[in-house]
């Protein structure tokens, strides 16, 4: 290839880089303010956040920013009425911080409901190790559990006026609960919940087949695999996934999924967070690493307009 060809290629790339930068500035300034608490035609029942860490931050700063992102998103999801949230990071940094995340969510829940009398319960569910019965498989075919942490955040009533000489009840009456407050299940997952989990399912069926020594195949269909990966001991498919690269400069790059569980992505809608222009990076890399509520709302708005044809 001649030097002229290489020069032409680099020139095309330079033009493309300039074009992308212009698009990102235009998109940033043309983004109208969004409102979270408005009725939408369609809301995801299950939202996923795929976080890509910024290696230029120190390990502790990166971890702290990731935990803050989980807190932010949990709060917005509760306000929006989303009942299930999965947060994925490839290396399992958030899995390792599950206890801290649970404590911080409890603290922020307590501070927003300071008059609530009962202690909030946030059972932390580590990867399941005990056997539970499956509704659709026979008892000898109990699927292996997926590796995920689950934090249940129940709904809490809003603060009530206190009156004298009234017996304070431990639990508030149903009619006094805010109609908007919804409980949320938060799952923390990593790469091990994806491809390795499918390999473990295969290994599990191999062991069952060996033990049964039956001539009939135990594993018959997609449903058998699906029950293992999505059932009671698994992870349901997210309706919407927000992919957030904490390094703002990388958000112009095409979408990549960094090992997110493939089985569960069949019909998931994707949205990437956009890069912030350099002059808007107030507060440095840590601030730009955090999710922006406007982006979250845009993702919900786009999802509510998406048409699902399901093959038809």
């Amino acid at each position, binding site marked *: *290839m001649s030097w002229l*060809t*290489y020069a*032409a*290629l680099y020139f*095309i*790339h330079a033009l*493309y880089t300039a074009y992308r930068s212009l698009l990102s500035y235009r998109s940033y300034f043309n983004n109208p303010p969004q409102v979270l608490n408005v009725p939408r035609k369609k809301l995801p029942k299950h939202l996923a956040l795929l976080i890509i860490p910024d290696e230029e931050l120190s390990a502790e700063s990166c971890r702290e920013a990731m935990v803050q992102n989980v807190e932010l998103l949990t709060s917005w999801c509760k306000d929006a009425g989303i009942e299930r949230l999965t947060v994925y990071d490839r290396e399992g940094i958030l899995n390792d911080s599950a206890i801290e995340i649970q404590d911080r969510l409890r603290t922020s829940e307590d501070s927003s409901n300071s008059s609530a009398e009962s202690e909030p319960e946030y059972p932390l569910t580590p990867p399941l190790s005990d056997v539970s019965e499956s509704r659709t498989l026979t008892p000898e075919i109990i699927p292996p559990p997926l590796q995920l942490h689950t934090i249940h955040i129940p709904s809490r009533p809003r603060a009530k006026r206190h009156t004298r000489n009234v017996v304070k009840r431990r639990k508030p009456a149903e009619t006094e609960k805010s109609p908007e407050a919804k409980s949320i299940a938060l799952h923390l997952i990593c790469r091990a919940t*994806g*491809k*390795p989990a*499918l*390999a473990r*399912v*295969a*290994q599990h*069926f*191999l062991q069952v*087949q*060996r033990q049964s020594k039956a001539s009939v*195949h135990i*594993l018959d*269909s*997609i449903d*058998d*695999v*699906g029950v293992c990966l999505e059932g009671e001991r698994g992870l349901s498919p997210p309706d919407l996934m927000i992919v957030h690269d904490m390094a703002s400069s990388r958000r112009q*790059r*095409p*979408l*990549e*999924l*960094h*090992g*997110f*569980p*493939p*089985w569960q*992505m*069949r*019909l*998931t*809608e*994707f*949205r990437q967070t956009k890069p912030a222009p350099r002059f808007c990076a107030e507060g440095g890399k840590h601030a730009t690493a955090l999710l922006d509520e406007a982006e979250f709302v845009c993702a919900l708005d*786009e999802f509510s307009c*998406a*048409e699902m044809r*399901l*093959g*038809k």
Partner: protein
Amino acid sequence: MLPWPIPVWVAAKTQTALLRVLSAGPIPKHVAFVMDGNRRYARMHHQEVQQGHAEGYVALRRVLEICMRLGVQCVSVYSFSIENFKRSPKEVQALMDLAEEKLLELSEHGDLLEEYGVRLNVIGKKDLLPERVLVAVQKAEQLTRNNNRAILNLCMPYTSRDEMATAVQSAVQHALEKDDDDLEITEKDIDENLMTSLAGSPPLDILVRTSGVKRLSDFLLWQCSENTQIQFSSAYWPDFGLWDLLPILLDYQRKAWSEAQ
């Protein structure tokens, strides 16, 4: 597609020059396309749905030739989903007719696949296909089986979950046949038993979905979940061409260069 008409010879020369320049940089080994938007294209142009699918076939030939001229080793396309059998019988029949006719056209002597040395693989749950289409599949695969410069995977009728479940079944079966109680099934075993791997496809570098939809719709989920750039193009598939592929290729080259540093 460009919004303004230009003389055909100018377009051809420009395309040739652009492909030559792009080939100076890194080229993806495996590109996959979800060819979405044929019906919306037809409605937009006040055509029958079948005409939209016919235009979609023309786009497939166009994009396939571009990929071959660039040096892409493997192209996978989502021709027909197992879920698409839910469509109206009339549309399904039209799609099967198109598949039967075009499979043989593509594989004929002197046509595109022979010109670029492309081996055709039809991947999916083929026992769901009508007998006449199955015969066409077998004939087309046979005609191209000795081609060894590139691969075209036509995924029909296909879903990724069916592919993954089948890979799990195959991995279990192979392990049972080895009769070694210490043998464990790994990710690598699943990967090797995928239909795309069995057809000799390299790892997937880029997945493109047209028509503005931002979903994977059960296509190559395992293959694209790591180290694959996923690109959503707003163009309808019948309109998709080199100018739509250009930014996608440039993004790939930027990634390849940054990884090489």
